């Protein structure tokens, strides 16, 4: 018999080594999240999965599950916090959902809907983030990057290529590619890479496939993000589970 902790008043079983988020998703319980991905080691940067454990707030994706924890998640105080964090991510980048290829497949958009985010609330930063259309098959639209680092991990751990990295700091922190020219065409990125599949927003796009699935029939048009996340949870990991390149992971 496995140990359990309490999530919003009901028991969640967990196995040794699982974090609160991993155990919750495996047990059919959704905690909103953006930078967490079931196939990679969590690092806890977006903070959308913040929960209250025995009265203290912490990221549930990195918090090791322990027997007897009292975890609060679906309460207005935390959902309000999550709304603000999602709003921060919206104003930090340039997110124009109606014209975005990822609309309907975008985890940021779907999570905002789930949290009932109605407005960006803050003034837009409108950062200048040029596109990289240099690669014959792949387009990078950095305007939408939320710095989740999943492409960094996927390219390093699964693809063994290290196509992506992070530079700058604070509000100027940004995604870079592994080329002296700074252009994707000078990397060994390919359409078959795992890094093509992990972007939760619309940064990494396959050229020539724009809007091939109509709006209204897309991933989060069919099922809300809370249901999709539970479907995704039991997937077996392709990755080693430890990423040497992403931040906060060591």
């Amino acid at each position: 018999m496995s140990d359990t902790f309490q999530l919003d008043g009901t028991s969640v079983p967990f196995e040794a080594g699982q974090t609160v988020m991993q155990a919750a998703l495996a047990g059919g319980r959704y905690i909103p999240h953006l930078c967490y991905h079931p196939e990679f080691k969590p690092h806890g940067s977006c903070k959308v999965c913040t929960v209250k454990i025995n009265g203290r707030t912490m990221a549930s994706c990195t918090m090791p599950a322990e027997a007897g924890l009292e975890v609060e998640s679906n309460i207005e105080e935390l959902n309000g916090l999550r709304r603000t964090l999602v709003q921060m991510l919206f104003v930090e980048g340039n997110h124009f959902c109606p014209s975005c290829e990822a609309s309907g497949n975008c985890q940021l958009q779907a999570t905002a809907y789930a949290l009932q985010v109605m407005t960006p609330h803050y003034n837009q930063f409108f950062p200048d983030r040029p596109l990289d259309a240099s690669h014959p098959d792949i387009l990078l639209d950095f305007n939408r990057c939320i710095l989740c680092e999943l492409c960094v991990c996927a390219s390093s751990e699964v693809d063994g290529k290290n196509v992506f990295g992070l530079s700058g700091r604070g509000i100027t922190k940004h995604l870079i590619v592994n080329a002296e020219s700074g252009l994707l065409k000078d990397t060994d990125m390919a359409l078959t890479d795992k890094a093509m599949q992990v972007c939760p927003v619309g940064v990494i796009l396959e050229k020539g496939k724009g809007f091939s699935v109509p709006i209204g029939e897309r991933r989060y048009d069919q099922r809300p993000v809370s249901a999709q996340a539970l479907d995704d949870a039991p997937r077996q990991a392709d990755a080693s589970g430890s990423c040497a390149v992403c931040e906060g992971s060591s």
Partner: protein
Amino acid sequence: MMAGSEIHTAGLDSILDRYARDPNALLQVLREVQELHGYIHPSSISYIGVKLGIPRARVEGVAGFYSFLHLQPHGEYRVLFSDNITDRMQGSQALMEQMCQQLWLQPGKVSEDGLVSINTTSCTGMCDQGPAMLVNGRAITRLTHQRVQEIGHLIRNRTPLADWPADYFRVEDNIRRRGPLLDNTIAPGDVLRAALALDSKDIIETVKSSGLRGRGGAGFPTGIKWEACSNAPGSEHYVVCNADEGEPGTFKDRVLLTSYADLVFEGMTLCALAIGAQHGFLYLRGEYRYLLEPLQAVLQRRRDNKLLGRNILERSGFDFDIAIHLGAGAYICGEESALIESLEGKRGVPRNRPPFPVTHGYLQQPTAVDNVETFCSAALAMQMGAENYRAIGTAKSSGSKLISVSGDCPRPGIYEYPFGVSVREVLDDCGAANARAVQVSGPSGVCVAESEFDRKLGFEDLPTAGAFMVFDDSRDLFEVARNFVHFFAHESCGFCTPCRVGTALLKSTMDKIAAGLGTQYDLGEIEHLDHVLQTSSHCGLGRTACNPVLHTLKHFRPAYESRLKSLEFEPAFDLDGALARARQMTGRDDAGAHLKPEEA
């Protein structure tokens, strides 16, 4: 003639070889490449990546993280004015403007001939002798209009930095009050000789019973840290001295490293003996680059005197040595896990904890990270004996504390007090007249108002890493808080959403109020941002980023309100007036039938 890319790879091999092509030394390699070439060219980055066997994106990411590393040319002379509030109070902004005019420059831009650039940088730790600047990484103190003008001429004439007047670079200790630490009579090796008679457990027991707590601000009991580190299994144990003295207003470690370096290293070696470490690091902030050679000379002398190296003091198997690692302009590296990331040649991003550095620190091995003053105090406690050390200070804060006094007072400098000293006593000793507020322990600490000057420095009341910035009644506390908010936004590592975006939003909100466009609504927004930063930030930087605003709002609210466009939010229509018909229909006109003033 060399081809373009060869110019930028010339000389790199000797640097890389000196660091044995160790990827953990990436930051040191980048720093030296920049000293050689003036900046880090894209082809240098590719070359370093190949030679260290790491992706170039990682090299670029590290180079892009630290303020003092540059990916583009920034002029033969890189002038950085220290931008702490104390520098500003001493007139740094006017001096910078003067220099920009003299050299026909805009701040942040490189002159068209590539000669010079002028910008600001976070506090350089010279608050007792400001305004200060860094020129190509070298600290210059006591700036005046005349000195700035002379510097402008030297730059225009392309005079090499080595030929500039030595007086520019003179850094005074300014020790104003001595106590057991600054008055110590410990000769190099004294503490180690005594400690060698004890076993590791006894050393730890002495430090524990001395009651010594970390001097970096957090106050974790040092003996318990050493014990946990000693007990943690690992192939190696490490001692790390945190000399990344980045908290604005703090400069006591600068003085200890200048005039008490032996005591620092004695304390580190004592720790090595206690926890069983063979390797130590001194993480020296980049702003104190000028101390590198003197400190290396002290280390060499200690090696020559058998106080470092193999078989220290002829004790077989007592091997320990210390390497100095220079930072490159990142306040966040004062956080111990970010410091360790930086030591490993990475971006200075705080790690997820647990595990803590005492079990999983440098290279995932048990590591004791302590502040410069903590190591000195540990050595002193060993020398004095736990009982005697504990007799100084208060019940929960034993020993003495170095206070870095700056701001509005005639005698800024270093003051050593037993813990428990009141803010008022320090103000009296430094001669501060008309003090209105004191920022204790820097921007992340507490703003203490006049009514609280009897509060005491110590872990029971006002814990402090040492900064003590005095503001008299001519100062605008709103501008003080705004300076600190800009500091936090500049120093956020950018890892987590709340701190990366929240500190930027806080900065723009404070700027909005400063521009006279703020309303009561913005004060509410600040309180909301504070809640978000407090509850969800990854580390202490984000959690404390709102402190300066909250503390000054509490004590000096008029400084904010006098700037607000209107004290209340003013809607376009009259809400209370809209209820007039309802009042008429119900025949009521009592208070309950009106919107309360704060609702209207």
